[in-house]
């Protein structure tokens, strides 16, 4: 009952929002806002011409490459820090510092050193995404009780078994929290790289439309990016929830 009531309210909210957008769009200058219907029509048009799919694929490739590299670098490094305590103590402060640094500020350096092309953009996405992964993995490593390792040792656990039964199960849930945060940051990095380095993908599409005063195009692509963000974040949440019980959090 409550469930249906809730869904009803959500539908009501979405309908009201769509109606408001439609009405506001019809009563303002098209340079500011266009109705939802026009925005969607423009989005379909962009999709028909193929322009949208090319841009989306290019953006997703950039996103996936950057995030993938961040995982390949961040998680093994985090696990290594979990295993070697002195290395963690030595580096955790610097990782926290870099995690708090707005990586966006490094974009001009990357532009002037690496110029245009795919690699500098991947580096931007990687820099945005890797520190939340690393930071959370180190948090996991920090809360790994030395007793757990001692118990494993006193049962004559080998290095392999120690990783399989203690380190990975303990640290991976934290890494997944980092992964969820990294998804959001990588998305920002993706659009920022497409705006401020060589223009490509959805970012370029937004800017092209903005330059030609195609408000419907701008709004349409932003709508698409928002849906992409929601889908990716839901994916991250789902992954995290799968292991949240295991980590001992009621969520």
């Amino acid at each position, binding site marked *: 009952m409550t469930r249906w009531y*809730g869904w009803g309210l959500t539908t*009501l909210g979405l309908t009201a929002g769509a109606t408001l957008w439609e009405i506001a769009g019809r009563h303002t200058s098209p340079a500011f806002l266009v109705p939802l219907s026009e925005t969607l029509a423009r989005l379909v048009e962009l999709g028909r011409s193929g322009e949208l799919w090319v841009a989306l694929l290019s953006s997703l490739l950039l996103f996936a490459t950057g995030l993938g590299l961040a995982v390949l670098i961040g998680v093994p490094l985090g696990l290594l820090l979990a295993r070697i305590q002195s290395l963690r103590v030595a580096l955790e402060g610097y990782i926290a510092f870099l995690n708090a*640094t707005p990586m966006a500020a490094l974009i001009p350096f990357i532009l002037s050193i690496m110029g245009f092309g795919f690699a500098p953009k991947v580096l931007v996405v990687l820099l945005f995404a890797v520190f939340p992964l690393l930071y959370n993995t180190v948090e996991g490593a920090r809360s790994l009780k030395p007793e757990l390792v001692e118990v494993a040792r006193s049962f004559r656990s080998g290095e392999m078994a120690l990783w399989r039964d203690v380190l990975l199960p303990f640290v991976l849930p934290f890494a997944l929290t980092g992964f969820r945060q990294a998804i959001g940051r990588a998305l920002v990095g993706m659009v920022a790289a497409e705006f401020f380095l060589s223009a490509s993908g959805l970012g370029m599409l937004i800017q092209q439309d903005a330059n030609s005063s195609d408000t419907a195009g701008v709004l349409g692509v932003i709508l698409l990016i928002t849906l992409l963000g929601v889908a990716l974040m839901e994916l991250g949440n789902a992954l995290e929830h799968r292991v949240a019980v295991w980590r001992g959090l009621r969520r």
Partner: protein
Amino acid sequence: MTEAVERAPPRLVASVTLKLLAGLVLLALWEISVRLWAPAYVARPSGIVLVLLPVLSSTPFLRAAAATLGAVAEGLLIALLAGIVVGIAMGRSFVVDRVIRFYMFALFAMPMVAILPLITLWLGYTDGARLATTVFAAYFSIALNAADGARAVPSEYLEVGAAFRAPRTRVLVGIVLPASLPYLLAGIRLAAARALIGAVLAEFFISVDGLGTYILYNSRSYHHNEAMVGVLVLAGIGMGFEALVNWVTRRYFPWYRRDETPR
């Protein structure tokens, strides 16, 4: 390698030495690799040290830092006031929550940099556009965390309020708001980081006076050492804010565990 984990945590002095040593190694690696492989204009520690004081005491730099910090602080304040109101309404009212939750979540998930062209379309290339970006970047994480906090208020607290026949506004201001403060602080910590990124990206886009613009212009004219000072100051602001929020949380809400942070 094996003993390292099993030994008791190193003593304070040893751990500080270790940290300092690691810092020196990292700086040396940076310095050497730039000297060996990078063009001469690329920032390196020895170059940054030389320009550090002149840059930090120059008027354009201070003006830029003040502009960025001011926009972030103002944006955070606006986002905080609006976020508390909407967040608590979401947390305490099922109807409000269901009607607007999708929007809040979608706008939270949206990369804020994507709307820069739209914001400049609406507000022009102005300070106001930067402020709007910081508000937008900060608002949704504050509101969503405030909502989580308001939802998690123990029912005993509310029962006490009911027993004393407290009016609804007093319950919200006197019970729900203080009880959800730890969640709100977690939201503020995240929001501050997002607002800082938002401000820098907005400055790249609209070129108003600020640290982002300072970094952009200096790196364009190959003054990378000077530009890197700007990055360090931004990192310092980010770090300082995080430390402040963590300190407040530990000092006033010691029972609040950090990994309960939902977002």
